[in-house]
C-alpha cells in the first residue's frame, strides 16, 4: 500500500474534483434509495386503494410518482457529475505522470536504459499509467460503492426490519470470500491466457520471420502442424478462463437468489403477520442488490488495486532514478572548444560488468588532428568515443578537453560543439530534412542539401519523389543500411562542429562511396579535430594518427606508415586485408 501513497500528491492537485466526486456519489446514492422507497410507497398505496384503506402518509399516487421521477432526475445529475469528476482526475493524473516520465528519461544514460529497456519503458508508459488512471477513475468509484452502498442499503433495511436484515447478513461474508476466491482463480487463468497468447504471437512471429528458411526447406506442412499445437493450447487456456468466468456468473446470482429466498419466506411471513407491508418486501429486494453490489465487485477491485500498486512501483522506479550524468559546469571552461583531448589513466567499466571496457588509457589528441581508431568488436572503441561527449562517465582517471576537465563544461556546450555520429544509424519518423537537421529544426534547406552532398546522399534523395520531405522510418520510406548511415553522417556533418566524432559510420556504405565521402571530408574538416572508428585500413590510412585498441587497452598508436613499419597488430591487419590470407587477427572487413 505504501506504493499507492505515492499517488496522493498527484491526486491532491485535483482535490476539489475528488470532493465533488464523493459528494456527488453520496447524493446520487441517497436519491437511488429514494427511488426504491418511492416504488415501495407506490405499491403500498396501490394495495391500500384496493383494500380501501387510508393511503400511506396520506400521499396520492401521482404525488409519489412525481417523487420517484424527481429522485431519478436528481440521481442522474449527481451521478454523471460525480463519475465525470473521478474520470477527469484519472486523466489529469495520467497526464502528469506521462510528463514526469518523459522528463525523467531525458536525463538518463546507457546504464539506466541497460537496466530498463525501451520495451519495458513503453510498457510502463502505456500499461502502468493506464492502470493508475483506471484505479482513479473506477477504483475511486468502487471505494464509494463499497462505503455508500452497504451504508444506505443497510440503513434502509434496518429501518424497515431488523430481524430480516439480520437473517441475510451471514450471506455477505460467504459472497465476499467467494468473490475473492474467484478473483484469484481468474487472475491465474488470465495469466495463463496471456502466456499462451504471447506464445502464439511469438510462434507466429518467429515462423513468419523465418518463412524463407521454412519454404527453402519445404517444411510448410510440418510448420502448420506445429502451429496447431500452440494454437490449440491457446484455445484451451481461453476456454478454461471462460469456464471460470461463467461459473462466477452462475454462482454469484445464485447466492443472491438465496438471500431473495430468505426475504420471500421470512419476509412473506412478516407480511402475513402484518409486521411488514408488501411494498417493504419489494423495497428489501431492491436494497439487497445494493448491499451485494460491492461484494460482487470485490474481486475485481482487489485485482485492480494489486495491479495498480505494481504499476506505481514500476513508475516510481523511473521517477526516482537519479540523473546518470550530472551537469554541473564550473564556468572555468572556455566558451569555444577546439578539440584537444587528453586522456589520463582513463578507465571505464560498465555497470554489472566484470572486466573493464577501457583500462588505463593515456593519450592525447591535438587540436585539428584527425584520429583513426581500430580494434576488434568489444575492444572499447565506442566506449571511448562516448566518453568524449559524456554519454558515459569515467570511473577512474580523467579526460581533459582544451586543458580543462571535461566535467567543467556544460553538457549543452559539450554536445553542441562536438558532433558525434553513433554506430547505430537511428532515424526519427520525420522528413529526411528534419532528420539531417535534427539539432536545429529551423535550419535553411540549402544547408541541409550541402550536408547531404558531403555525405554522398544527394543522388539518393533525388530518387525520392518527395526528396527532402520524404518521411522515413516505420511510416515512411524504408532506407537501406547504407542510406541510413549516410543520413546520420549528414546529421553530424551539418553542424560543422569544431570536433567531429564518427563511430564506424561506413560499415554499410560501399567502399567506393566511402572513398568519395572521405576525400570530401578531408577538405571540409581541414584544421578541425576529427575522430573516426573504422575497420578498414583504406579508411584509416586517411587519418593523421591511428590508435589500435585491444581489450580496452591502447596497444599502438602512430601514423599509417609508422604503424606499418613497426610491424605490430596494425601491420598484421593491413597484411590480412590486402592479401586475404587466413587471419591471425580478426578482420572485421570484407
Amino acid at each position, binding site marked *: 500500500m505504501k506504493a499507492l501513497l505515492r499517488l496522493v500528491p498527484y491526486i491532491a492537485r485535483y482535490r476539489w474534483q475528488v470532493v465533488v466526486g464523493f459528494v456527488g456519489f453520496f447524493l446520487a446514492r441517497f436519491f437511488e434509495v429514494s427511488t426504491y422507497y418511492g416504488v415501495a410507497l407506490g405499491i403500498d398505496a396501490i394495495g391500500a386503494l384496493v383494500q380501501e384503506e387510508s393511503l400511506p402518509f396520506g400521499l396520492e399516487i401521482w404525488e409519489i410518482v412525481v417523487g420517484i421521477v424527481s429522485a431519478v432526475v436528481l440521481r442522474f445529475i449527481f451521478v454523471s457529475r460525480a463519475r465525470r469528476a473521478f474520470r477527469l482526475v484519472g486523466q489529469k493524473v495520467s497526464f502528469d505522470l506521462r510528463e514526469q516520465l518523459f522528463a525523467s528519461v531525458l536525463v538518463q544514460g546507457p546504464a539506466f536504459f541497460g537496466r530498463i529497456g525501451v520495451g519495458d519503458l513503453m510498457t510502463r508508459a502505456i500499461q502502468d499509467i493506464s492502470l493508475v488512471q483506471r484505479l482513479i477513475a473506477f477504483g475511486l468509484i468502487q471505494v464509494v460503492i463499497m462505503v455508500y452502498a452497504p451504508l444506505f442499503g443497510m440503513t434502509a433495511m434496518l429501518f424497515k426490519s431488523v430481524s430480516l436484515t439480520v437473517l441475510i447478513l451471514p450471506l455477505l461474508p460467504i459472497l465476499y470470500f467467494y468473490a475473492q476466491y474467484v478473483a484469484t482463480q481468474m487472475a491465474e487463468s488470465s495469466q495463463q491466457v496471456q502466456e499462451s497468447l504471447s506464445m502464439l504471437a511469438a510462434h507466429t512471429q518467429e515462423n513468419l520471420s523465418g518463412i524463407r528458411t521454412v519454404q527453402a526447406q519445404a517444411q510448410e506442412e510440418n510448420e502448420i502442424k506445429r502451429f496447431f499445437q500452440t494454437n490449440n493450447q491457446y484455445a484451451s487456456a481461453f*476456454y478454461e478462463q471462460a469456464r471460470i468466468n461463467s461459473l462466477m456468473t452462475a454462482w454469484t446470482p445464485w447466492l443472491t437468489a438465496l438471500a431473495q429466498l430468505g426475504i420471500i419466506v421470512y419476509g412473506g411471513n412478516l407480511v402475513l403477520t402484518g409486521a411488514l407491508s408488501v411494498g417493504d418486501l419489494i423495497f428489501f429486494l431492491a436494497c439487497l442488490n445494493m448491499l451485494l453490489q460491492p461484494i460482487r465487485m470485490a474481486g475485481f477491485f482487489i485485482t485492480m488495486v494489486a495491479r495498480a500498486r505494481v504499476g506505481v512501483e514500476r513508475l516510481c522506479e523511473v521517477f526516482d532514478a537519479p540523473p546518470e550524468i550530472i551537469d554541473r559546469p564550473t564556468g572555468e571552461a572556455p566558451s569555444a572548444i577546439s578539440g584537444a583531448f587528453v586522456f589520463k589513466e582513463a578507465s571505464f567499466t560498465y555497470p554489472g560488468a566484470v572486466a573493464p571496457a577501457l583500462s588505463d588509457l593515456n593519450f592525447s589528441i591535438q587540436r585539428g588532428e584527425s584520429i583513426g581508431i581500430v580494434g576488434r568488436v568489444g575492444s572499447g572503441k565506442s566506449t571511448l568515443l562516448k566518453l568524449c561527449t559524456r554519454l558515459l562517465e569515467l570511473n577512474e582517471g580523467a579526460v581533459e578537453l582544451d586543458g580543462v576537465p571535461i566535467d567543467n563544461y556544460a553538457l549543452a556546450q559539450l554536445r553542441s560543439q562536438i558532433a558525434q555520429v553513433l554506430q547505430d544509424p537511428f532515424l526519427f519518423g520525420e522528413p529526411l530534412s528534419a532528420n539531417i537537421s535534427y539539432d536545429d529544426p529551423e535550419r535553411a534547406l540549402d544547408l541541409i542539401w550541402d550536408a547531404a552532398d558531403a555525405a554522398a546522399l544527394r543522388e539518393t534523395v533525388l530518387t525520392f519523389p518527395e526528396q527532402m520531405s520524404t518521411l522515413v522510418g516505420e511510416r515512411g520510406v524504408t532506407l537501406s543500411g547504407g542510406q541510413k548511415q549516410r543520413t546520420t553522417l549528414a546529421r553530424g556533418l551539418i553542424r560543422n562542429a569544431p570536433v567531429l566524432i564518427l563511430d564506424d559510420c561506413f560499415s554499410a556504405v560501399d567502399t567506393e562511396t566511402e572513398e568519395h565521402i572521405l576525400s570530401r571530408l578531408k577538405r571540409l574538416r581541414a584544421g578541425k579535430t576529427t575522430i573516426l572508428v573504422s575497420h578498414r585500413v583504406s579508411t584509416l590510412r586517411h587519418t593523421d594518427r591511428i590508435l589500435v585498441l585491444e581489450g580496452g587497452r591502447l596497444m599502438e598508436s602512430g601514423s599509417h606508415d609508422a604503424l606499418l613499419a613497426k610491424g605490430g597488430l596494425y601491420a598484421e591487419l593491413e597484411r590480412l586485408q590486402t592479401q586475404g590470407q587466413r587471419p591471425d587477427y580478426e578482420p572485421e572487413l570484407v
Partner: protein
Amino acid sequence: MNQTIPPNAGPKKDDKPDRDHAMFDAELSGNVLNFQLLKRVLTWLVPYRLSLWVSAALVLVASFAAVLMEVVISRVLVDYIIVGDANSPMPDLGLIALTQQLEETFGLPALYVAGGLFFVLMSIVALLGHWHRLTLIDAIVKALRDLRQDLFAHLESRPSSFFDRVPVGRIMTRVTNDVEALYEMLRGLGSLVGEFVPFFVALTIMLSTSVELTLILLLLVPVVGSATYFFRQASREIFRQVRNSVSGLNQFLQENLSGMQVVQLSQRQDQNRAAYTEINRLNLEQENRSINLTTYYGAFNDSLASIGLGIIIYYGGGSVVQSEMSLGGVILFTRFMNMLFTPVVLLGEQLNVLFRAMASGERIFQALDWDEQIREPSHPATLPERLEGRVEFRGLSFGYSKDTQVLDNVSVLIEPGKKLAIVGPTGSGKSTMIRLLGRFYDFPDGMIFLDGIDLQHIPSRSVRRRIGVVLQDFHIFSGSILDNITLSDPLITRARAIEAAKMVNAHHFIEALPEGYDAPLVERGANLSQGQRQLLAFARVLAADPEILILDEATASIDTETEQLIQEGLQRLMQGRTSILIAHRLQTIQEADHVMVLELGKVREYGTHQALIAQGGLYKTLHDLQFQELSAEVTPPGLVPE
C-alpha cells in the same frame, strides 16, 4: 467492400499482376455492418452447430426459469399468498395451481412451497445458464481456432514477393489481434441472444398482463435506442481522435527512447519535451471530450429504467382500482423492467464491438483471399531419384516490380559438382539469381534448367528439396539445437542430424554445451556466436542432403578458430554438390571453379580467378578495392553505389 479486397481471380497465366501490397496495410472500410462477412465468419461455426443448438435450447429454458422466478414473487407470493387473490385473470403460467397442488400433496404452508419453487427455479437458472455459456464458448473457441489455423496455413504458403513487401508485424496482427476481435464479436452475439430470450419471454407475459402498460413502457425502448444511436454517432469521431492521439503519444515516446542518445547529443531535450507536452495535452483534451460523452450516456440509460418504475406505479394504481390488474401484476412489471432494458443497452454496446470486429473480419478475409502464389506446373515433370546437378541459367531477366530490372539476360552453365562464385557490388542481382533458382519468385523472361529440365515444370516444393540454401541471415527458431538442425522434420532422425553436425564441424561446440543437442536456442540464436550459427546452418542443410548447394556467405567477422572450422565444414558441404556461392571471402572465391562478375544485373565477366585477375577488368578493380592491393584512391568507372 469489393473494392478493398483484391479480386478473387488468380493471376493471369502470362501477365504477372503488379500487386499493390500497400493494400495489405491499408485501413479497410470497417464500421459498416456487412452481413456477407458475418455469414462467412459463421461458416467456421458450422462444424460445431450441434453445440450451438444445445446452447440455444439451454438458454431458452434458463430464461424461462428466470422469468418464472419473478412470477413466483409477484403472483404467487403477493397475489395468492399475501393478498389472497387466487382467481385474478392475470397470467401466472400455472404456478398458482402448482403451488396449491404441492400444498395438498406435501401438506406444507403455501409460503414454503413458494420458497421451494423459487429455489428450484434459481438453481435451474444458474445451472443451465452455466451450461449454455460453456457450450457456446466451446463452439466459438474451436471455430476461431480453426479459422486461425486456416489463416496460418494460408499465409505459410504465400510466396516471397508477399513477405518482401508486407511487414511481418502486420501479418502477425491478423493471426492474433484480428482473430481475437472476432471472438469478442461472436461472444457478444451469443450474449445478446442470452439477453434477448428473457426479453421476449418477459415481453410475452407483460403483454398478456396489460397490453396498454406494456406498450407505454416499450415507448422507452426507442428512447434508449436513439440515445445509443446518437452516442455512437458522436463517440465514433471522438474515440477515433482519442486512439490517434494515444498512438501519437506512444510513437513519439518510443522514438525518443530508442534515439535517446541522438536526442541528447543534439541537445533536443527541451524542444522534445515541449513537443511531448503538446501531444499529451491534445490527448487530455480528447479524453475529456470522451469522458463527458460517456458519463452522461451511461447515467441516462440506467435512469430510464427507473423512470419506467414511476410509469408502472402511476398506471398500475389506476388499473388495480379498476380491477384490471392485480397488485402482483404491478410488481411483476416493476421486476421486469431490467429484463426489458438490459438487452437494449447491451445491443448498443455490442454494436460497437460488432463494428470494430467487422474491420478485423475484413482484414482476416483479405489475408485468406490473398491468392498471390508461385505458379506451379499443371503437368509436373518427374525428377530422377538423384539429380546430377547441372544448373543452367539461360537468358534470365527479372525485376521485382514492373519498372525495375534486377537481372538482365543472364546466362551461365554450371556443370555437375562444380563451384561457381558470384561476385558483384550490392544490388548487382547476386541474391536474386539464387532466389529464382530456389523458385521463390516467378520469372517470365528466360529459363533455368535443372539437369536439363525446365525449372518451371517442377513443383516449387520439389525444387526446394533438391536445393540447400544457406542464407546470410539464416533463421534460428526457438527450440533445441536438434530442432534447428532437423527443422522438426520427422524424416530427419537424431542420428542423421548428429552425423551432419559432425561433418560440418558443429558437433564439437554443440557437445560442449551442457545439454548438447537438446540445448535450447532463443530466437535468432542470440546465445550462439556468429560462427556457431553459420556452422549450425551448414548442418541443417547437410542433414536435408540436397543435390545442389547455394551459399550466401556471411560478411560478418568470425574468430580465427571458427573461421577455420567453417572453411572445413564448407568444403565437406560442397563435396560432390554443385555449388553456387555468393562469395565475400577471398579464399572462397579462389577455391571456386569459376567466378562470375555481376554488375547491374548483367554478367560482366566470367572465368577463373586467375584469368579474371589477369584480364584486369572489373573483377580486378573490385578485388583491389576490397583487398587493398593497390591504392584505394581508384574509383572504378561506372560503379554506381547501391
